[in-house]
């Protein structure tokens, strides 16, 4: 089996694991981490297509991954700041309880 399908399967697996985590965990931080996993899965795809795609000469895949890593970092920072704000507000970080717009 040529490596490209393997990579794609790997990334889809990672994506689904992250999705399951983001959907099932009650801890906001873990939900965020699940989303990070999904992002990483997307990056895996970019790299895989860059490497085994039809036009590897173009560096677009790598460029895109660089940007997505940057965005992921920003997302993590803001997300965790939000988690801390939630914690300060309701003294725990269960996402189910963070369902009110006004406190």
């Amino acid at each position, binding site marked *: 089996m040529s*490596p490209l399908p*393997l*990579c*794609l*399967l*790997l990334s*889809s*697996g*990672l*994506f*689904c*694991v992250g*999705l*399951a985590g983001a*959907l*099932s*965990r*009650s*801890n906001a*931080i873990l939900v*965020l*981490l*699940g989303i990070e*996993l999904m992002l990483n899965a997307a*990056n*895996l795809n970019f*790299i895989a297509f*860059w490497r*085994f*795609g*039809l036009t*590897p*000469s173009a*560096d677009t*895949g*790598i*460029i895109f*991954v*660089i*940007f997505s*890593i*940057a*965005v*992921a*970092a*920003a997302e*993590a*920072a*803001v997300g*965790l*700041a*939000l*988690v*801390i*704000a939630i914690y*300060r507000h309701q*003294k*725990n*970080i269960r996402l*189910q309880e963070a369902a009110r717009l006004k406190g």
Partner: protein
Amino acid sequence: MNAVLVIIAFTILASAAVAMSLRNLIHSALLLVANWLGVAAFYLWAGAEFVAFAQVLIYVGAVSMIVLFAMLLTRRARADAAVVPGSIDRAISALAVSGAVAGVLVFAVLQTHLPAVTPPAPAATVRQLGAQLMGPQAAALLVAGVILTVALLGAVILAAKERNSNQDDAP
């Protein structure tokens, strides 16, 4: 070549799965660090050196730190250990949903006719990347910078709310 890939894939998936199912937050966070290292290994395997190092630097160096900090700051006695009611249903439905997605994705991957040939590893030197980033992608680079700055400020503002000052230089 594929053998290495399989090993990497196993590392990634296993660490991610275990991390997502552990009760101990810190452990799962550290496992996720392992997972990120695995992803970096994948990049290395695919020949994307720069991205791999960037991944390690940013995820293992920075993101994991923020995550651990947040965990310690929001840690309370049995905050997460207690099984909140309905979490079982949630887990089941989550598994079902992600299973469905997995089915769709795998189906798509297997259905699609992908190029079977493996082209020679393209050389993406840092110089090329720099030229790309500074040339055609300059606008995107600027935007990314702006996004990061704004995100940083926003995070500070969000997290530093109602902080009463100069408590920290008490002996």
